[in-house]
């Protein structure tokens, strides 16, 4: 230890004349590669260039799960970054880890950076806000599911591309017409649990889990086997059986089918925009996610997916100030508006949405506003604020398994969802006992 200290002293004396005020480093771990990785790097570079007190160092740590794991492992080794990107299903895990994370509102207070919680869009920040109304992390990339339509495929199958697709009832009619018209892949989906259960429940204002979907306590139980969800999945199961709904996998495998022009309708995140726009060689359109007319309070609002930025415990005040400045920079209107337009992710502040509208972006890129409207049309209810369930990555996995049993015809929707509830509740109880 002594050796290191004297080494450090020598180094300090040697280098201090050159670098008088070394900027405080703020480490930021994220899960983005490719185009998104470049955009994040650009944001960081711009922030670093805009001031000289802090230097944000961004590092790619793998996919969402891997990034969360790296953060956790680093925390255990006492080498955690200042800012960690965590996907939305990891939210409950982070929230329960008092002592490992520092709530965002405290960081902002400490740093004195500009921060107005009311500036953020309710449906976006709700996912990451405590029951007392304090923001715990900064929503970074948020998206919501919409319906993508291949207009050429519709026309080819003899279905009017402008036909009403706002409700599942009318989608059902369209699917029958598409199938009859020779379309081999009338409907395909990505992220089945997120879209057809989590968002479905919020959109119809029916609970996905008790205790306000877990917002009000860890002693929550799944209610995804309710009549509304079962009715929807039964219809989907029937469509799967009739060859009107094609299952391609648990993640966004269906995107490849849709972008290649093989499918007519596609339920997928609004953030699929960049990829579809780049690859699709057909006339496509974005429609709001369909709802069942007469079920629940539909259409309520859909919820988000994506990731937020968490600030981790165990750093100095100066570093927290830097982290706060960076988060404040990311929330600023210009940065947000640019991010929203570049990626198709939702704007996290109302001002960024307004700026985008004012710039004429929505008018030039038809359909890009659908997701924003769908999210913000109604004030979120206890059922449509989001989900806050422990071990949710695992629970989503078992929901995927049960959904596959419906699509293959092995189980009825009711049987599958009853089983999902039973298995999921066991995991929720375990999470509760680990985080008491």
């Amino acid at each position, binding site marked *: 230890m002594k050796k290191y200290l004297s080494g450090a002293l020598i180094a300090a004396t040697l280098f201090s004349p050159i670098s008088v005020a070394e900027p405080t480093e703020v480490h930021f771990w994220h899960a983005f590669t490719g185009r998104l990785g470049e955009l994040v790097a650009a944001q960081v570079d711009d922030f670093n260039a805009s001031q000289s007190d802090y230097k944000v160092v961004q590092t790619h740590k793998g996919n969402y799960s891997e990034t969360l*794991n790296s953060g956790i492992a680093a925390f255990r080794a006492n080498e955690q970054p200042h800012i960690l990107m965590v996907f939305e299903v990891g939210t409950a895990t982070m929230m329960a880890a008092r002592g*490992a994370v520092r709530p965002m509102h405290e960081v902002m207070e400490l740093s004195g950076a500009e921060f107005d919680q009311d500036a953020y869009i309710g449906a976006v920040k709700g996912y990451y806000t405590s029951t007392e109304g304090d923001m715990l992390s900064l929503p970074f990339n948020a998206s919501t599911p919409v319906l993508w339509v291949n207009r050429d495929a519709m026309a080819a199958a003899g279905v009017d591309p402008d036909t009403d697709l706002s409700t599942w009832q009318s989608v059902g009619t369209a699917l029958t017409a598409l199938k009859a018209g020779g379309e081999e892949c009338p409907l395909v989906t990505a992220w089945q649990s997120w879209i057809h259960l989590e968002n479905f429940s919020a959109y119809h204002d029916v609970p996905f889990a008790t205790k306000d979907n877990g917002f009000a306590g860890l002693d929550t139980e799944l209610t995804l086997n309710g009549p509304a969800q079962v009715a929807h999945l039964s219809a989907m199961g029937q469509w799967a059986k009739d060859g009107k709904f094609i299952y391609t996998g*648990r993640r966004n*495998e269906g995107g490849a089918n849709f972008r290649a022009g093989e499918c007519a309708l596609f339920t997928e995140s609004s953030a699929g925009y960049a990829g579809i726009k780049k690859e699709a060689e057909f006339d496509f359109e974005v429609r709001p996610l369909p709802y069942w007319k007469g079920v629940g309070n539909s259409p309520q609002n859909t919820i988000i997916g994506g990731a937020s930025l968490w600030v981790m415990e165990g750093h100095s005040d100066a570093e927290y100030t830097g982290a706060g400045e960076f988060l404040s920079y990311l929330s600023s209107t210009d940065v947000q508006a640019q991010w929203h337009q570049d990626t198709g992710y939702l704007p996290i502040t109302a001002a960024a949405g307004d700026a985008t509208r004012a710039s004429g972006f929505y008018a030039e890129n038809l359909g890009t506003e659908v997701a924003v409207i769908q999210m913000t049309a109604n004030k979120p209810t206890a059922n449509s604020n989001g989900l806050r369930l422990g*071990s949710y990555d695992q629970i989503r996995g078992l929901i995927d398994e049960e959904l*596959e049993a419906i699509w293959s015809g092995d189980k009825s929707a009711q049987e599958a969802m009853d089983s999902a509830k039973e298995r999921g509740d066991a*995991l929720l109880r375990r999470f509760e006992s*680990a985080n008491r």
Partner: protein
Amino acid sequence: MNQRVTFRGWWLPILLIAPQVLISVIFFFYPAGQAIWQSLFIPDPFGLSSVFVGLGNFEFLFSDKFYRASFVTTAVFSILVTLCSMIPALFLAVMADRLIKGSGTYRTMLIWPYAVAPAIAGVLWLFMFNTRVGVVSWYLGQLGYDWNHVLNGGEAMGLVVIASAWGRISYNFLFFLAALQAVPRSVIEAAAIDGARFWKRFWTVVLPLLSPTAFFLLVVNIVYSFFETFGVIHTITSGGPQQSTTILVYKVFADGFVGQDLGSSAAQSVVLLFVVGLLTVIQFKYIEKKVHY
């Protein structure tokens, strides 16, 4: 008659086995002990707190019918992988052993797949059988067979078995070939003079002489199918559809590193430790008796 050479004193023998003992302790006993210790707790992911639950983790596991089903899946998977990697390897080795011209090239080609990492092998096979763009699934479609391993559990199992066994055939091939070349020519010639044809000679003379190698490969391949096929399953099916390809090791990973449930994950490792220990004991106790050295 039994002549035993013994060391005088204790120091030299202890010194000689020390490296092996040290390696075992550091890389096996210590982590295994840690796993057993951790299996008694439910920790939170960040290591901030930990609740002692005794055997609660095991109770939780064995009350889960999907976990119990995973044993069957693992058994089916391991047996299939072992058979599918050993039988073709033996056949190829017998054929390669008879080759006179070009045997070097032939052997090299057969050994090649072993150099492909499991995860990459998984991706290769996934591409060939991809339901949308796969070459094999396209041909199957031409033949009127609708390949869909995304929803069909049996097909998914078949695919991960082939992908896991494929690279392994090379490894087994090497050992079988070496063993075949060690079979004394005189024995085979004697059998040939007695009028035994090739397959008769193979079954009655060669195969029994191969049994030590076959036994060794059996043990190694079962251990392989238990632990090293993870990459293939992760890339091809992620354990699905439903739980049709979730083998025990994959569940350890999924619960520990995706679900952050380290207590359950540790308990599963302990269970696995016992299963593999038990299998090895059975193999050595019963099957080895039938092996002629």
